């Protein structure tokens, strides 16, 4: 038996991957083009072709020919309706490159799907029907590609056979497109006359359009040089996961988003301003001397500093922006419109932060690029907006870094992904005074007091007994000579938070301030006892994130609402019933009970005294009270 030498099977080390998107409307022949690329590059297997032939007879629209569109329209509904609804990803390979194609629908009502496909692409093939020339949809597709940061375009002038392979026609379309696309920031635009149906200039040169001397489509896709990574840019390393297999190893796992770094280099944690040096770059295949954009590694540092998921490491002289206000382009993707002021969960890199749109500066008509006024944003609409986040986010402008400049909106109630954003610039230029790490640190302050600082956070309905129990805990700790401070919702609202009402935004701000104050106090070495209704899980989790998991103790004071209303210590429930108070937690405003509180107190089953003892017991068990 003849065995081929091993070298033949090994792909060249330089073989890379190109991810591109095809844009075009139903009749432009987009799916046919992909089918043609797959077929002519021999990526369709015989058994798939057999199924295709059978399906072509059933659903096809290419007469007796094979309808390649059916190859990519994978969902039942798509085949029945003869349209592409969702993004489909297709793969083919040549000895030089492997390709991933995002095939997306071109209709205006599928703008979100196109944006999704474009977010993964380095290049776009924009299809134009040679008989029709540059149309409204061509402008739309080009605009979206440009917005999502695609810088390389192939203008595929399709159905050239239907204009008798006319050179003038092709030249006119190419000229028109170049003039239109001048302002879109593309670095390369390559027009190619093709016939997807007959294969001209797709993989093989056209025997008819002999006047065309440029590359065939596949040839161009194989040879175009697109900087694969962003290795030449500023170093960014978003921490995904803290790897702590044992007390001796603490590594930060993540993928280098841009730039490169070497062991020994100085880095800064963008949000905290702490600096240290890279100790090791660990991988399963052995330690590396350096890592660059695209490498998934685990980094260990010289000093033990507080770093968690969501932090971004950079070089001290080239830091990302840190701001809680920024301007961004937003694409809305949900049936329920975007409402300014409403809170969403934002995912920015590995950071998860609550945020909202504070203002829509203007909406952009995707067909004409005109700026329009808008009070809200509906499905598939795009706008330039101001965004506010509950705590500072770390980011770069999207046009400098697609990885650290992009974010998504998640609805807090349905958990659907409802929008996508591309950050343009920070609105508060607080970069100049990048955070300074303080020289006396919290550990030293706490050591002076002979205790471990923490934040004990009581949450529960109004009248649940939070403050009663919190006071008892405070007294007990004082009795044990511990340094404590009690923060109470009512007290703070008379002073620091006197400017805040009870709207959702104000409640978020209320808790944000309390969290910041609690953190400052914990940093000064105190055991901070907080008693706040704090109905939103997100806000509580944010404080948890702020303070640090190890030092945040969430105490759920669990009392049924009927019992709270019966107790009604402040007479609030009766005011709600008579309509004098609105937005009252548990009545017309929702309370999100903790799913995994550190301490769960059921007040119907035990006295406040017992509850307070239970809390102190947990503090002891966590050795917070060990001197």
């Amino acid at each position, binding site marked *: 038996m003849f*065995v*081929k030498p091993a070298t033949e*099977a090994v*792909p060249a*080390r*330089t*073989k*890379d*991957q190109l991810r591109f998107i095809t844009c075009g409307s139903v009749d432009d022949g987009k799916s046919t083009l992909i089918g043609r690329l797959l077929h002519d590059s021999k990526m369709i*297997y*015989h*058994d798939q072709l057999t199924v295709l032939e059978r399906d072509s007879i059933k659903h096809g629209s290419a007469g007796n020919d094979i309808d390649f569109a059916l*190859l990519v329209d*994978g*969902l039942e509904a798509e*085949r029945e309706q003869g349209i592409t609804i*969702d*993004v489909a990803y*297709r793969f083919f*390979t040549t000895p030089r490159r492997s390709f991933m194609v995002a095939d997306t629908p071109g209709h205006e009502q599928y703008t979100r*799907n196109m944006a999704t496909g474009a*977010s*993964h692409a380095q290049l776009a093939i924009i299809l134009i029907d040679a008989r029709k020339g540059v149309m409204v949809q061509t402008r739309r597709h080009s605009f979206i590609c*440009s*917005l999502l940061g695609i810088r390389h375009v192939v203008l595929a002038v399709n159905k050239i056979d239907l204009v008798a392979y006319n050179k003038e026609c092709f030249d006119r379309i190419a000229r028109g497109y170049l*003039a*239109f696309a*001048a*302002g879109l*920031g593309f*670095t*390369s*635009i390559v027009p190619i006359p093709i016939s997807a149906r007959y294969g001209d200039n797709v993989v093989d040169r056209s025997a008819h359009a002999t006047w065309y001397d440029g590359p065939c489509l596949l040839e161009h896709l194989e040879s175009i*040089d697109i*900087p*694969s990574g962003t290795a030449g840019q500023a170093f960014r390393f978003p921490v*995904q*996961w803290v*790897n702590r297999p044992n007390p001796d190893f603490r590594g930060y*796992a*993540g*993928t280098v988003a841009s730039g490169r770094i*070497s062991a020994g280099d100085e880095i800064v944690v963008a949000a905290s301003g702490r600096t240290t040096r890279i100790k090791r770059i660990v*991988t*399963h295949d052995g330690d590396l*001397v350096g890592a660059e954009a695209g490498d*998934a590694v*685990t980094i260990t540092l010289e000093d033990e500093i507080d770093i968690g*998921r969501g932090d971004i490491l950079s070089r001290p002289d080239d830091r990302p922006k840190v701001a809680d206000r920024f301007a961004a382009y937003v694409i809305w993707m949900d049936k329920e419109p975007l409402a300014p002021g409403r809170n969403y*969960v934002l995912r920015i*890199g590995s950071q998860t932060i609550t945020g909202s749109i504070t203002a829509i500066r203007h909406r952009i008509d995707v067909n004409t690029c005109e*700026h329009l006024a808008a009070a809200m944003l509906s499905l598939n609409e795009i706008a330039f907006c101001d965004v506010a986040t509950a705590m500072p986010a770390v980011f770069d402008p*999207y*046009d400098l870094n*697609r990885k650290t400049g*992009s974010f*998504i909106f*998640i609805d807090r109630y349905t*958990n659907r992904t409802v929008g996508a954003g*591309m950050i343009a610039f920070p609105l508060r230029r607080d970069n100049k005074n990048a955070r300074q790490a303080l020289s006396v640190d919290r550990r030293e302050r706490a050591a002076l007091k002979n205790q471990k600082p923490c934040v004990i956070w009581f949450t529960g309905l109004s009248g649940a007994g939070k403050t009663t129990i919190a006071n008892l805990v405070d007294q007990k700790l004082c009795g044990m000579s511990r340094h404590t401070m009690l923060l109470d919702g009512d007290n703070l609202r008379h002073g620091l938070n006197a400017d805040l009402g009870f709207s959702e935004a104000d409640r978020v701000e209320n808790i944000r301030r309390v969290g910041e104050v609690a953190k400052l106090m914990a940093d000064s070495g105190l055991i901070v006892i907080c008693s706040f209704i704090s109905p939103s899980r997100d806000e509580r989790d944010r404080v948890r994130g702020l303070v640090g998991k190890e030092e945040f103790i969430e105490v759920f004071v669990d009392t049924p609402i009927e019992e709270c209303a019966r107790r009604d210590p402040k007479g609030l429930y009766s005011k709600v019933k008579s309509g004098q108070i609105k937005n009252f937690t548990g009545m017309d405003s929702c309370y999100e009970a903790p799913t995994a509180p550190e301490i769960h107190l059921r007040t119907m089953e035990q006295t406040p005294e017992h509850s307070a003892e239970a809390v102190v017991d947990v503090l002891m068990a966590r050795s917070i009270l060990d001197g």
Partner: protein
Amino acid sequence: MCCRVCKSAVQWSLTSWTSLPLGRPFPPRIFPTLGWSHRTAKNSDPASKRRYMLPKHLRRLEAESIEIMRDVVAEFERPVMLYSIGKDSSVMLHIAIKAFYPAKLPFPLLHVDTTWKFREMISFRDATAKRLGLDLIVHINKEGIARGINPIDSGSALHTQVMKTDALKQALDLHGFDAAFGGARRDEEKSRAKERILSFRSAGHVWDPRNQRPELWSLFNTRIRQGETMRVFAMSNWTELDVWEYIMLEKIPVVPLYFAKQRPTVRRNGAMIMVDDKRLPLNCGETPEMRMIRFRTLGCYPLSGAIESDAMAIEDIVAEMQTATLSERQGRLIDVDEAASMEKKKREGYF
């Protein structure tokens, strides 16, 4: 020339172009290829050489899969990795070990055993678990066994439904897993091509293909409510060829059934079935014939069609792949019932 182009790309930034009138005169240049090599050419780290043993496209795929796995482990309470013993599972497991090194795998492996897997698969599974010190859970649908469900008498559809799909749902519920890694790839099949990397399942493990969460960049939406789960396809963007090239270059052990060998076979409905044990009833006058065969995909042995092949080493398989004319799913008897049968099975909770 090149540098001028680079500069102009920066100038035409997000903030500037939207305010530009359309059709503003701009020298219509065509840049077929740009020489950006001066930015990326130099990589003189000698100790990083090992990393460069893999071709760029495989390095990118590996890093992407690692990123997905780390994200899921950071965001979910109880992840699990579905381990089907096949080549894709082998690669997925290999990458997971890389992703969390030096820590041990932070999740268990789950094998849904239909009791009709090839014997060599089971011994490979147990050897792998032992070799790598894995936390392996094996789940069998006992109810299905009690009802006598099997691929021969019950038919492939019912067998798959009860012993694979239902069994998987049982196991996920039993252990309260909220995220399950699977090795499925988008190039395998049409409806898979539309699947998200993080694919949401409502309570009851139902997939709604028309109502999937948009998935942009590598920003995954990991939020679910109680009872809802996520299927995670960390190898979505790999192709069959990528998988084999990676196995070859990383020297990953796979089940010997992938390599050609003389094995006892019978022909059934145009497929070649290996007689793995005595449970396969032979038709009157039918005797197993020894043939040089191997498998491109592995499943329940009475439902897995073999191909005739001489490929005895991975290099041969990769070479064979490059000239293959049939898809890897050709051997799977459970997919051909109807064009959209995979979509249908997936809606019901099949992986």
